[in-house]
């Protein structure tokens, strides 16, 4: 049962254009949603997060939008740069019964072409 879904395994965009990565979720109990960036042979690195009570969070070139009624979030990268090429994971936090953990999607591989 995949609680966090990233339905696009890959995305290719031109340098300077907008990259939009999408994520859907099923569990209404998630507290926060996060985006991680991962390069080969490295661990995931945190990019940006949004609380479940917000609908937008912006940090430089990165903006995350949350649509709770649709259980959907998206990450916008503007303008895209070749160094943004990586695998992006959508994740959600859940805290229940003394536990706290991240639930990840399968990832979307972003390629930004010069």
């Amino acid at each position, binding site marked *: 049962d995949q609680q*966090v879904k*990233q339905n696009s395994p890959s995305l290719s965009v031109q340098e300077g254009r907008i990259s939009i990565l999408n994520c859907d979720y099923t569990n209404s109990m998630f507290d*926060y949603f*996060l985006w*991680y960036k991962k390069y080969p*042979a*490295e*661990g*995931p*690195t*945190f990019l940006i*997060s949004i609380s479940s009570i917000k609908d937008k969070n912006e940090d430089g070139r990165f903006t995350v939008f949350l649509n709770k009624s649709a259980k959907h979030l998206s990450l916008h990268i503007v303008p895209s740069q070749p160094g943004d090429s990586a695998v992006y*994971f959508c*994740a959600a*936090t859940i*805290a229940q*019964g*003394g*536990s*706290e*953990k*991240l*639930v*990840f*999607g*399968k*990832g979307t591989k972003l390629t930004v072409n010069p």
Partner: protein
Amino acid sequence: GAGVSQTPSNKVTEKGKYVELRCDPISGHTALYWYRQSLGQGPEFLIYFQGTGAADDSGLPNDRFFAVRPEGSVSTLKIQRTERGDSAVYLCASSLVGRPTEAFFGQGTRLTVV
């Protein structure tokens, strides 16, 4: 150290052998997590420690997997009678308790069972 350190970076073992994977968290981080990332998948939760105790081990796939954190710092993930299906990247992350959104990941240990 400055970040989460995992050793070894790579481990090749024969089917049926025992392996230990080590995680050195960020100093002062009382929360520690183990995740497993199989090929083409996102990281999947294995176990969560608060201090020395495993607060949630619901993600461990079976009783061949065990993890300890005896002094509330370094953690060791132990896998007995390894199987080819155990091949994956094992990721460790640490954070302050109650701050899963601020978890930092290590680079992972790539385990290959042949």
